[in-house]
């Protein structure tokens, strides 16, 4: 075989070997090559050291109350008025690329409600302000989600047309 270090594959073959992702025939060919190639051998040894070092790094266990806390948050979100209002329009907004326009509308509306000049009450009651600011935050967060989804759909859409090589 040609020396992986000297070909355009760079170290891909050697990385795959250390990750145990070469098929047996490829692995055997590389092992034969390494017996006579000091450069590949030292690369492989160094990469093996990295691989084993990374193996020692265990992640901590999942916290016992992780699911409970998640379901609590999901439940808490399920009853916000804006989500019920917004949910049916999400696919349309997504397709037509209107999330920013929707954000602007909702934020302006929230702003108007929050800053409506003092009819009846000169200073808005603290609880109402808090609720509105939380809702504005949630709108922003949802729009963030939509943006991410949109980018993702675009990215995967493009990649769908290019065949997965190798």
């Amino acid at each position, binding site marked *: 075989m040609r020396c992986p270090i000297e070909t355009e594959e760079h170290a891909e073959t050697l990385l795959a070997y250390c990750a145990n992702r070469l098929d047996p025939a490829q692995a055997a060919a590389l092992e034969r090559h390494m017996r006579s190639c000091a450069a590949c051998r030292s690369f492989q040894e160094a990469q093996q050291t990295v691989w084993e070092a990374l193996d020692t790094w265990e992640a901590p266990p999942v916290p016992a109350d992780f699911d409970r806390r998640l379901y609590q948050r999901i439940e808490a979100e399920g009853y916000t008025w804006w989500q019920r209002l917004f949910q049916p329009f999400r696919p349309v907004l997504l397709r037509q690329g209107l999330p920013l326009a929707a954000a602007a509308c909702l934020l302006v509306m929230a702003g108007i409600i929050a800053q409506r000049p003092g009819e009846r009450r000169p200073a808005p009651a603290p609880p109402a302000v808090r609720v509105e600011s939380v809702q504005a935050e949630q709108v922003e967060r949802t729009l963030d989600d939509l943006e991410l*989804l949109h980018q993702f759909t675009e990215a995967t859409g493009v990649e769908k047309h290019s065949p997965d090589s190798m």
Partner: protein
Amino acid sequence: MGGAAAALDYDAELMLRVKEGDGASFGLLLEKHRSAVIHFLYRMVQNHAVAEELAQEVFLRVYRSRSTYEPTAKFTTWLFRIATHLALNALRDGKNERGQESLDGSVAELPVRQISDAAPTVEQSMVYRARLEEVRRAVSLLPEKQRAAVLMHKYEEMEYSQIAKVLGCSESAVKSLLFRAYETLRARLAHMA
């Protein structure tokens, strides 16, 4: 490829059921992918509390996006795209600015099992901890995208093509990220041989 296609169908099918209002399917997805997501985020930000908070956010976003979900790609690609996006944002916002936890406090409970079957001596434990600290530091010093690529390649055993979709770049860009990241790690961890 058969295995990957089957996995795609199963997770995507579960997510489509979530879209139809089946909460139990969300529970199955959570059960199946929870650890991988938390572990990935922990290794990205190296802070327990931040990683947990981000993992909650990942699954919350999955749940919130159920009505618009379309199985255009593997479910895990989508999941890790959300996780990576949140991790990179958190790192940029300095959410882990309390800093990476030292091993003394955070991972003291981890089993020290690679040394021998017998209980490790104090000295062996100290050597092990020092090595672990070095590995963590070496990974944390990698640029964020390289770090994400290495973690997905090493611990999630993802193919280049899937990492590319998660990171929103080409496969050749992923190869280059991984090549540079491992080159740096080989230099930083060479003495551990």
